[in-house]
Every structure is written in C-alpha cells, then in structure tokens.
C-alpha cells in the first residue's frame, strides 16, 4: 500500500528530527571527545619546527611515560586512598543515618533536611569555606583553643597528612546527604510484612535492622557503592582544585588534576590524554563488569543512573 509506505517514511523523518538535536550534542560532547582522547593518547603534539601543531604517532609512548612518572603513581595512590577511606565511610554512614531516621526518631524530618543541605551547596563555596576554616588562624583552631585542645591546633592545609584529612572530611561532609536520601527512599518501600514477621519471631529492633531491613537494601547499597566509587576516581577535580590545588607539594594530587595540569599547565596533550584514556577504561570496567554479570538477570539496569554533579 503506497499510502502506508508514505506515512511510515514521514514518521521515520519525524523520529529522526526529534532525536537529531540530542544525538548531535551527545556526539559532540561524549563520542567525539572519547575517540579524540584515544587518538591523542597515541600521539604527541609537535611543539616546534616546521610541523609545529601536528601530531606524531608514538604508539604507547605516552602510557609508558605516565606509568614511569612518580607523580602519576602518587596521584593514583591518592585516588585509591580516598576510595578506601571515603567510600566505606559514605556507605556505612548513609545506611546508619537512614535506618535511624526511618525508625521515627524524634525530629527525623529536621535531621533529614539538615543532612541534605550540603548537597545543595556549590563545591566551590564548600571548598573556599573549608580552606578558610582550616587556616592556621581559622575558625577550627579557634574552636580547638576554646575547648582547650591546643594539641590539635595545627596548620591543617600546610602539612601533607592533615591536608589530606581535610579533603576527606570535606568530601564526606558534602556527599553524605545524597546517600542518605536515596537510602531513605528505598527504606520507604521495605516490605512491612517481613518486619512484622520478624517482630512476631521475637527479634529486637537491632536484630530487625540487621537481619531484615539491611538485607532488603542490598541493591541500593550496591548502587550507591558503585556511584561513590566512580565519584572518588573521576569526579573530585573541583574539590581538590578549590581546596589545595594538589598541595602542599603534591600531597593531594589526584588523577584528574594530573590530567588537567598536563594539558593546561605543561602543554603535554599526549600525556593528559593517556591519563584520560585510562580514566575512560576504569569507568568502563567499574560500570560494565558487574553489568555483564547482571545482564542475564535484569535487562534494563538503573545502575547506570547518575546524577550530574559539579
């Protein structure tokens, strides 16, 4: 039937028109940069001479250099340390707070609002404030002096260990609220009949929490752990840049800052791209390894869902 054929052609054009802007922009912002990053990571930029600005193929040279660079190893180590410290803290605290609030503690609404406030504040605002707070003559040290804890009055951001500690505190402070809110929302749909059954079996509230409620949160805990892990490896640039710029020395350098500085401070596009390519690889690994396993069980995984952050 020609009429129908015509209609379907019109429909096809329509579909294409509706999708085109979104697809073109995704190609520009995601697809092209990923391809170009991989290309750049295998080339180096010719800086001087007749061919200045051209690309020269160097194979895995950039990667070899990066793997030998002590600063890269140090940055990667810091990312791992942040992963080991921040992710468990965020997961445990958000589950604990959510479970407590869900038990109808007095004032739980107020607590929920308070815990969520940092999520709304811009990282730049948080970073600048924490920077001022932890100055030698800052408000934290004034508070310690007032509490007669003079041993704790140090120049927080001038020493490696304490600067790293401040970074950890700031990340947990800012990120916790989001975790609490998604855990709480999951708790709202916990199967009440199971809790009732547990109660009839004589569980106390502590046992109920550990044996009945938390196991039901498995999926959301897993989801949040993946999310926090990705955050810690790939979304911390703003925190570090505002608070310490990697210092003192290189003690708070992370992968993203390494990639950023190689590109925009030292004009080493190839090295920067090699690190970016590694970050892409890591994200793919974290996302798709578990995904492949789960694909059989669930076709459409919300595990992908991520809320953009600054």
């Amino acid at each position: 039937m020609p009429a129908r054929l015509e209609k379907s052609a019109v429909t096809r054009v329509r579909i294409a028109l509706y999708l085109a802007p979104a697809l073109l922009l995704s190609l520009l912002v995601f697809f092209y940069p990923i391809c170009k990053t991989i290309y750049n990571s295998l080339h180096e930029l010719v800086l001087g001479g007749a061919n200045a600005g051209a690309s020269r193929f160097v194979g895995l040279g950039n990667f070899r250099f990066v793997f030998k660079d002590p600063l890269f190893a140090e940055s990667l180590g810091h990312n791992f340390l942040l992963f080991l410290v921040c992710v468990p803290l965020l997961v445990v605290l958000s589950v604990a707070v959510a479970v407590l609030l869900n038990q109808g503690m007095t004032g739980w609404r107020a607590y929920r609002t308070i815990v969520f406030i940092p999520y709304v504040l811009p990282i730049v605002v948080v970073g600048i404030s924490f920077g001022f707070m932890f100055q030698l003559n800052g408000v934290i040290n004034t508070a310690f002096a007032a509490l007669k804890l003079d041993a704790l009055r140090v120049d927080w951001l001038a020493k490696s260990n304490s600067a790293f500690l401040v970074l950890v505190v700031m990340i947990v402070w800012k990120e916790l609220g989001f975790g609490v809110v998604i855990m709480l929302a999951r708790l709202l749909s916990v199967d009440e009949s199971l809790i009732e059954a547990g109660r009839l079996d004589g569980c106390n509230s502590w046992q109920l929490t550990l044996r009945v409620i938390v196991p039901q949160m498995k999926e959301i805990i897993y989801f949040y752990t993946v999310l926090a892990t990705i955050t810690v490896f790939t979304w911390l640039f703003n925190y570090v840049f505002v608070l310490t710029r990697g210092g003192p020395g290189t003690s708070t350098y992370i992968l993203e800052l390494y990639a950023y500085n190689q590109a925009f401070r030292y004009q080493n596009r190839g090295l920067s791209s090699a690190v970016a390519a590694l970050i892409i690889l890591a994200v793919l690994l974290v996302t798709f390894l578990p995904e492949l396993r789960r694909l059989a069980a669930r076709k459409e995984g919300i595990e992908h869902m991520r809320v953009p952050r600054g």
Partner: protein
Amino acid sequence: MAAGQEFRFAKIVGQVFLVALSLFTLFPIYYIVTASLKGKEEYLLNNLGLPHGVALENFRSLFADFAFVRWLVNSVLVTSLVLVFGLLVCCLAAFALRRYTFRIKGLLLRFIASLMLIPPIIAIVPLFEFFVRIRLINSLAGVIIIYIGFIIPFTIYLVYSFFVTIPGEMIEAGVIDGCRDLRLLFWIFIPLSVPAIVTSIVVNAMWVWNDLLMAMVFLQSDRLKTLMAGLIAFRSRSNINLPLVMAGLLVSTIPIAALYLSGQRLFIKGLMTGLEK
C-alpha cells in the same frame, strides 16, 4: 525489663549520633553566614562567635563590585538557557522514544544510559581544541552548548522513565482527538511528567550553576566568567577581606538553594521514580 532498657539505650545512642552529625553538618554553614555578617576588623578579633550586629556592608560592597554582578548575571543567563534548550531537546528525544517503535530504540536507550558515567574531565582537551578551531572559546554560547550536551543522558533517561508510564490508551485518545505530535508532547506527555521535569530542572540547574571545570577552561576573560569561576578569582583578589568573600559565597548559594527548596518535594519523588525503574 531488659529488652525495654536496651531499646531505650539504643534510642539515646541514636539521638546522640544524630545530634553530633547535625552539628558537624551545620558548623560550616554557621561559619559562612556569621562570617559574612562581620566587619573585616571584627572578624580578625572574633572569627568563631556570633557577629555584634547585622552589618550588611559586605553585601553592599559586593553588589557595588561590577565584576561580581556581571558573574552573577552570566550564571543566571547560562543556567536558564541551558535549562530551556536542554529540556526542549531532551523532551523531544524522549517523546520520539516513547511514541514510536523503531529498530535501534533499545540500543539507543542503552547508549544514552551508559553516557551518564562519562566524567567531564576526559572531554575537556578535545573539546577545547575543537572550540578553538571553530572560534567558540570565550563565548557564553560555547559553554551553553557543552552544558546542554552533558545534561542530555540523565535528562532523557529521567524524562523517558516518566513518559513510559503514560498509558497507551491516553495517547490513542489524544491521537483520535486530532492531536499532532507536538500537541501530544505539550498537552499530554509533559503535564503528566511534572515530577520528572522539576527534578531535571533542579538537578541540572545545580550542576550547571555549580560547575567550575568547564567555566574555567572555556571562559577565560574575566567579564565572561560564571559565578563559580569568578569566585576563585574573587578569593585571591579579596583575600585580606575574608568576610567579603564569605558574603560572595553566600550570595552565590542563595539562588540555587532557593530553586532547590521550591522544587524539593517533587524533586525527591522524581528522583526515586527514576531510581526505582
């Protein structure tokens, strides 16, 4: 009554924990607000306590600062344009995905979802070089395009997950009543997906307003900076007048916090529906 005692004990421990956590959370906010109300000399003598009075001089000098006002205007402009055009683009795409069936639909949805995890840092260098070539560096239009691109995966995914729940009969009824596609979108799809629209407005506004990386790389001249990039410059420029900087931080937070508060109830609902899907 051992059980009752144990229960009461757990409750007390829980309350103590929550109070401690609240104090930890509120302290930096207390600090920002009080410091912004102090004079320069007053702050040097008393950085921890409450301010003597409500001195608004910091806010007055902030708004007399031409650069700061300019950054504020830039941020409002960039954020609102990104939201308007970004939502339009995403609603159209989500509409096509819901209304029609076509061969690569499933693939497309999975592709969009997987883009959500790509961190901005990896796109910076290629986009920078590309934008230098097409002369879109140092232009608000340039960053607006980039921001729209970055909000696409999340927004399409969220809006689509609401569009899917619209019953087919309703769409059929609209078609029988003679609604063309755009009318369907604006009269049936969008009104039925208000939580998703509000959630994406709030989440994306926070992301665009709060972003530093793109703003720093793509907007280098001082007068084109958005607030977040501006604040970094402002900090080093006014570092002897700390209360003034704190006032700047507070003012930069208020618009986005107000937007969040006004959409809060729908925001949590929208986010959860998206998550549960």
